[in-house]
């Protein structure tokens, strides 16, 4: 229940009746290649965010990331036991090839995503069936009540696909895939370029631009240079240190959007001395989250107080972010039997500038209480594999939400049985597990809030991992781009409907 | 007294080193196509059925043009390469079948002196160091006695022993050749294989080294297998001479007889072509034509395409070795007994020398030929 506030948002509100765009192409430079455009299989954020421009879902999250609003389903009803959901499709909805979106397409698509091994089906485990009762009506049956159902269905993975076309061509997603979203793909070169073209069959408001060209430019500096040279209009992730310089340029602007990203430090609970909660608390007390914010994010992030994303649903504002207290840290360490500190490793992902900076600050902070840290950088895959065992020293990781409901983060982060071993800390607490399960099937908002606050507080006290920062999404764009907006979930499909590009 | 004399005579007859039917055939790489078609590979007969003997204390000179197989013969004798056929005998014993003891003996008894004075010594070792190394490795002299022995060796080759600390780079070609000889002497050999040891030296230095070779022979009783292309040198130093042509011995015999009346037309040509001081030359030459390709040697007598006395039989029949009246063993159809199955000889044995001379025989002294 909060607006899109947070950090500075320099983009003006999209003026409703703006004339059509002067330049009808928007060029975006992303830092990461497209892994696939099959929504059920997507993993890379950048690709996920693009999916949402192509495939409409039954419902969607509003641009502020706070509530679920209609998409293909213009309305829905719930049975009184909360176990049967009926969705009524918009009769105007059409796929980009002009054929109508039918309930059986929708049911097929959701079932496809559910069935995919290693896919996102587990989120909606309580669902027993998804069927089309008539061409305009989708019926979803549950075995237990499931509060996050709508939020889950708004997720990209449950995008509605043209069943016939997908089934007819096994290379559908590698060529020029389309759905019922505002854009369709006209050129796909996963490692360098994606061209989105306006879908003229789209039932909703037509975008003012006709084409979006997304290029993949992995080198951070090269992206900035391309923006400075006017070769692109919007770039993802400009290096933090350049933000000041970029915003000083009247032709450019820096956009910081609130995100659901939470940076945290993983703690190897299975090993000495971290099995002792006092040691974990001492580490937490020694950290200077403000300094970290300054050096890693140029002050643009917010020090994290809980493991829930900043200002999202049920985020416990009341919990205090830790402040450096070296005396307390030293005292806790002595109590735990480590008055002179100890040595440990800190696993980081190489090439992640912010993470490296955080690591350097952590090393420096912990050195003050006698803990000697060796920074071990690995390429992402190895880093995560090493961290996952929970035995290889401290580690830096982050989380982002895919849905607006906190069920996902709570399950992964604090439920030892939730599949991710409480963010691989292997920390468990029966009360917390119970609270999370209750919250999932609880539909009363206040009760849910209470349960989630309890979970957040326990995690903050027990410190199985230590949340560090809430960084914003960083974009930079040319002053000639009007109305580029990113939702806290990272997608920008809503703004593409209304933004305009001027000559430059 | 008489018993000793006969024994002596017997040992004199046992050669120090002997080769019997020694051959070295280099197989040339076959093209893959030839290999696939199972065509036989080409073979270069660098040394072909060579039988020679070096007597103790005597010098066997080996002469021939480039590529005639002189160095290969030397390498075979030194067992730096395995023969394709034939044997090398040391004191009448086969080296190959003699096992480790035999090859050890070969390394002690037979040493080498090479042509290029600039690569024959390790440039990074001092003269004294190189000699001491030999003494150390062969274990013949205890460490304490080595400096004295080194000095002795250097003295023996006429190299100032005060220069033992010098490196080869500081020496002239002649100096290096002396050190090479001293190094070979350090093991106490009985035979030196010398592969063109004076070819790279200036006349004045060449004279010094030749004198040295001769003095060492008389002082130490060394035998030499002396390889060279220079007949003047050979005439001076050799007791016996073998003439090689395309891997085969075409003529061999006592040096004196061979130089006085060369039997084989090839030997005659070599002698005619060798420049002699003060002899005025004409515009004609001893022999026409080039050395044939050793991979595809001519049929019959391999010298026939260039031979001024070639006959029809030479093109077809390989001549056998026969002994001439003057005592050389020669493989040439001009001599009785060299053409298998044809007796009497095609020509009387006395004429061959004059036959060759008709082509070109040098006038003995300078005189106007134009």
């Amino acid at each position, binding site marked *: 229940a909060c607006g899109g506030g947070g950090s500075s948002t320099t983009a003006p509100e999209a003026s409703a009746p703006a004339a059509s765009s002067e330049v009808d192409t928007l060029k975006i430079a992303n830092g990461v290649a497209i892994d696939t455009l099959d929504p059920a299989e997507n993993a890379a954020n950048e690709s996920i965010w693009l999916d949402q421009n192509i495939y409409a879902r039954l419902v969607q999250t509003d641009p502020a990331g706070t509530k679920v609003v209609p998409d293909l389903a213009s309305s829905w009803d719930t049975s009184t036991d909360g176990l049967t959901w009926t969705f009524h499709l918009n009769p105007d909805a059409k796929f980009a090839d002009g054929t109508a979106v039918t309930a059986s397409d929708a049911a097929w698509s959701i079932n496809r995503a559910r069935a995919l091994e290693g896919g996102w089906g587990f989120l909606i485990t309580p669902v027993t069936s998804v069927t089309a009762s008539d061409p305009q009506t989708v019926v979803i049956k549950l075995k237990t009540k499931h509060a996050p159902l709508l939020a889950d269905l708004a997720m990209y993975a449950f995008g509605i696909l043209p069943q016939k076309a997908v089934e007819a061509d096994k290379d559908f997603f590698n060529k020029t895939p389309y759905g019922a979203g505002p854009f369709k793909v006209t050129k796909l070169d996963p490692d360098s370029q994606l061209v989105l073209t306006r879908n003229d069959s789209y039932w909703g408001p037509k975008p003012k631009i006709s084409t979006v060209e997304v290029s993949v430019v992995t080198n951070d500096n090269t992206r900035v240079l391309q923006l400075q040279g006017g070769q692109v209009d919007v770039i993802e992730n400009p290096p933090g240190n350049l933000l000041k310089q970029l915003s000083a340029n009247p032709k450019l602007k820096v956009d910081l959007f609130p995100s659901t990203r939470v940076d945290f430090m993983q703690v190897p609970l299975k090993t000495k001395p971290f099995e002792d909660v006092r040691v974990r608390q001492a580490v937490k007390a020694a950290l200077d989250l403000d300094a970290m914010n300054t*050096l890693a994010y140029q002050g643009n992030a917010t020090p994290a107080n809980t493991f829930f994303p900043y200002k999202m649903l049920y985020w416990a504002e009341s919990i205090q972010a830790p402040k450096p207290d070296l005396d307390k840290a030293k005292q806790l360490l002595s109590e735990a039997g480590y008055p002179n500190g100890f040595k440990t490793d800190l696993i980081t992902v*190489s090439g992640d500038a912010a993470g490296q900076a955080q690591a350097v600050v952590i090393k420096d902070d912990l050195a003050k209480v006698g803990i000697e840290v060796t*920074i071990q950088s*690995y*390429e992402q895959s190895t880093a995560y594999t090493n961290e996952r065992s929970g035995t290889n020293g401290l580690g830096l990781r982050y989380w982002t939400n895919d849905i607006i409901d906190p069920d996902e983060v709570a399950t992964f982060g604090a439920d030892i049985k939730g599949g991710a071993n409480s963010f691989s800390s292997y920390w468990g607490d029966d009360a917390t597990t119970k609270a999370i399960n209750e919250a999932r099937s609880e539909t009363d908002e206040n009760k849910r809030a209470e349960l989630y606050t309890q979970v957040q507080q326990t995690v903050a006290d027990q410190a199985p991992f230590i949340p560090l920062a809430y960084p914003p999404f960083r974009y930079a764009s040319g002053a000639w781009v009007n109305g580029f907006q990113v939702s806290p979930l990272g997608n920008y499909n809503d703004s593409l409907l209304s933004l305009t590009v001027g000559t430059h | 007294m008489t018993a000793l004399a006969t024994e002596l005579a017997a040992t004199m007859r046992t050669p120090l080193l002997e080769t019997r039917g020694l051959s070295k055939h280099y197989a040339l790489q076959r093209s893959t196509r030839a290999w696939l078609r199972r065509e036989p590979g080409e073979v270069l007969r660098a040394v072909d059925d060579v039988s020679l003997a070096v007597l103790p204390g005597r010098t066997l000179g080996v002469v021939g043009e480039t590529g005639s197989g002189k160095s290969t013969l030397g390498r075979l004798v030194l067992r730096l390469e395995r023969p394709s056929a034939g044997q090398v005998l040391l004191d009448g014993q086969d080296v190959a079948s003699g096992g480790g003891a035999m090859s050890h003996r070969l390394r002690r008894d037979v040493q080498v002196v090479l042509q290029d004075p600039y690569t024959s010594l*390790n440039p990074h070792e001092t003269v004294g160091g190189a000699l001491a190394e030999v003494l150390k490795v062969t274990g013949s002299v205890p460490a304490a006695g080595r400096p004295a022995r080194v000095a002795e060796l250097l003295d023996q080759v006429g190299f100032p022993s005060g220069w033992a600390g010098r490196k080869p780079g500081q020496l002239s070609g002649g100096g290096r050749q002396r050190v090479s000889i001293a190094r070979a002497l350090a093991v106490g050999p009985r035979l030196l294989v010398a592969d063109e040891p004076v070819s790279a030296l200036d006349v004045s230095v060449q004279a010094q080294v030749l004198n040295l070779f001769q003095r060492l022979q008389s002082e130490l009783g060394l035998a030499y297998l002396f390889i060279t292309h220079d007949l003047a040198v050979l005439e001076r130093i050799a007791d016996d001479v073998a003439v090689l042509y395309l891997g085969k011995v075409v003529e061999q015999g006592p040096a004196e007889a061979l130089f006085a009346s060369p039997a084989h037309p090839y030997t005659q040509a070599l002698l005619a072509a060798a420049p002699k001081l003060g002899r005025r030359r004409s515009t004609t030459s001893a022999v026409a034509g080039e050395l044939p390709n050793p991979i595809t040697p001519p049929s019959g007598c391999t010298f026939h395409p260039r031979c001024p006395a070639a006959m029809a039989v030479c093109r077809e029949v390989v001549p056998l070795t026969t002994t001439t009246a003057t005592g050389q063993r020669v493989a040439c159809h001009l001599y009785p007994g060299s053409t298998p199955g044809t007796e009497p000889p095609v020509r009387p044995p006395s004429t061959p020398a004059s036959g060759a001379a008709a082509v070109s025989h040098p006038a003995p002294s300078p005189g106007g030929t134009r």
Partner: protein
Amino acid sequence: MTTLVDPAQLGDVRGLSRARWLRLPLPKVLRGRFSLVAGIVLLLAIAVLCIGAPLFTSASPLDIDPLNPLAPPSPEHPLGTDAFGRDLWARVLYGGRYDLAIAFGATIVTLVVGTALGMLAAYLGGWVESVVMRVVDLFFAFPFIVLVIAIVASLGPSLRNMFIALWVASWVGYARIAHGQTLAARRYGYVVAANVLGYSTPRVLLRHVLPSVAPLVIVFAMVDAVGNVLLGASLGFLGIGVRQPTPEWGSMISEGQAYILSNWQLSLVPGIALVVLGVAFSLLGDGLADVLRAEQ
């Protein structure tokens, strides 16, 4: 990204300008050899600056200063500070230690191993030669370094892993040179004589063949040392150089690369240091080639 093999560098000393003014009272080998003297002087200067770093700066290369990142030059920080407020001058000085370690450490191991393999292959011939030279071909044919880079990235950056990458990448050059030189040396009179004298294979190889193989290999090593430092820098650029927060020129350049638009000195200063080191080594290589050739 292996070191470029440059026969010219190995064989060419003709273009050297022998400075006439260089008539200082120097040991004989140094006299008149501008390249050699300049190379030694430069390398010594770098070594003194880096090893004696505490004498030239009081700042620590590791202490961060969150309040003072990316500061411009000041009396306190002669070259300013980096993104963590660390003193750039101190980092350059201390960082050189690692580069010298890389230049020597990585190079010496490949020099020894590669040379030994090449020599053995050429001298022993037969199947040993076939196997070794096939492997050499393999390493020459495939840009192994790319694979190794990727794999080291997975193993995690550290000086050790970087050494492994450098070793894997550059031993072949030595093996090739040593192989060729040994083949040639096998025909030298003194090597033939050593065989006839009945010397053992190790003795022939070490005492008689090695001295003629060494010069070219050593000159190549000078080139390779620069190549190794550069390769280290490339590893740093791909985020897999030495471990944070270790200062090492290559990784400093690549860290600074992120700031090249705002604080270019962060890359430029270690870049210049690297070039100076490279120039020192290539002068030394030229000079050594000159000396070794004169000795022959």
